[in-house]
């Protein structure tokens, strides 16, 4: 592992993003615009907006990050730059951490805008602190980033990578406890829900919504989110093959 290579990689990925203003705009504006839409939709149901606002605020960056990072790393594979990098003195984790740093920076901007918008003009009321909303949101986005990096190992084409979204993200959305409380789920579904990472990401947001202070349960949720993120990055490095057939 080499910090200079990791930082150079992060700078390179951010430079590439800078050259693609449309993607940057989509990353920063779309989650905020969707929040506005949700607020408008629930104009006459303020309590409902306060109830689901925070979890939804976590979902948009999470989904976007899965798609963007899986396509970005897949592009690295298909253009041959990955093969070149792997013939150079670069550790596989240097590359993934570089991506993580770059997209982590994007996540901070993305979630920062959404949280400021939600708590400010949109008037979202949560029992917990605003900074906690931000921290949980960024960690949830980073979880999406790590899952995207890992998933890209299983896609041969960008077309396949995009298809992973419904295959991997939608079941997690259905089972995370936002649509139906987890307590009312069938035991089997609840067991599945227990092992899906988004469940913990959303649970943390629901706790910020309903209770003040950084409770013990949020700590457990965020530990699971971070552990999954690290595991996905390490597995991502393992699945990057230096030698191929």
């Amino acid at each position, binding site marked *: 592992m080499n910090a*200079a*290579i990791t930082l*150079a*990689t992060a*700078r*390179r990925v951010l*430079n*590439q993003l800078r*050259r*693609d203003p449309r993607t940057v705009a989509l990353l920063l504006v779309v989650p905020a615009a969707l929040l506005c839409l949700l607020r408008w939709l629930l104009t006459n149901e303020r309590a409902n907006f306060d109830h689901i606002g925070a979890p939804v605020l976590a979902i948009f960056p999470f989904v976007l990050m899965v798609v963007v990072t899986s396509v970005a790393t897949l592009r690295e594979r298909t*253009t*041959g*730059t990955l*093969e*070149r*990098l*792997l*013939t*150079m*003195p*670069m550790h596989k984790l240097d590359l993934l951490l570089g991506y993580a740093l770059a997209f982590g920076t994007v996540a901070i901007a993305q979630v920062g805008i959404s949280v400021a918008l939600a708590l400010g003009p949109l008037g979202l009321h949560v029992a917990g602190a605003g900074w906690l909303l931000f921290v949980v949101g960024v960690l949830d986005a980073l979880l999406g980033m790590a899952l995207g990096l890992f998933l890209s190992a299983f896609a041969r084409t960008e077309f396949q990578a995009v298809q992973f979204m419904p295959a991997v993200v939608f079941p997690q959305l259905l089972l995370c406890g936002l649509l139906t409380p987890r307590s009312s789920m069938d035991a089997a579904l609840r067991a599945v829900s227990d092992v899906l990472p988004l469940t913990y990401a959303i649970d943390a947001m629901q706790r910020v919504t309903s209770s003040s202070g950084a409770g013990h349960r949020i700590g457990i949720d965020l530990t699971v989110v971070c552990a999954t993120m690290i595991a996905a990055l390490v597995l991502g490095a393992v699945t990057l093959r*230096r*030698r*191929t*057939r």
Partner: protein
Amino acid sequence: MTHAVVIRGLGVSRGGREILHSIDTTVEAGSITGLLGPSGSGKTTLLRCLVGVQVIAEGSVEVLGLPGGDVRLRRRFGYVTQAPSVYGDLTVTENLRYFAAVLGTSRSDIANVLTDVGLNDHASDVVNRLSGGQQARVSLATALLGKPELLVLDEPTVGLDPVLRRDLWRLFAELAASGVTLIVSSHVMQEAQHCQRLLLLRDGRILAQGTPNELRQRAGVDDLDDVFLRLIENEQGADA
């Protein structure tokens, strides 16, 4: 003469099909070796074995005295793939700066390689907006970073105009004169005249190897284009 590359009984198979069969060859340090053969003959696979990104079924590859793919080799060779493997959405300099950082070489190196490939005027252009030939030279410039001892170049002159091709072969000759070993693949036999030694590949086997003159004599023809055809015919005649 020391050997930059020693290949013994190399075999590679993909999906049950053999891509390379019992390849045996050596490459002298400080020389230009041309790897020639029709497309699909296994040239790229052989080069991939040298740089350590190919799974090898049997045999051995030794590069600069170390097993192919050894970690210690990663600063010592440059590799240019057939398609330009650089970031199309970055400028030429941004690309070189990044790869220089990965290799840990100095910034002054970037100016040198830009001059080597004649891209000084395009240093701040975004790669995607350059012509195909210019993009290929960006990829080559990247491989020249860090003064590698061995250059593995997969069809570096494909699609370039005659003037550029001449300039690149001059650069390759200068590099070889300074002690760099070059292995250059091509499917155009005319390129062979620039090489000290040739390796003719067909269907994953070595059809013939030697200096251009040796091969001319063996084939009994003067024109390098005919050499390959004649050698194939001779082999088929021997089989019959």
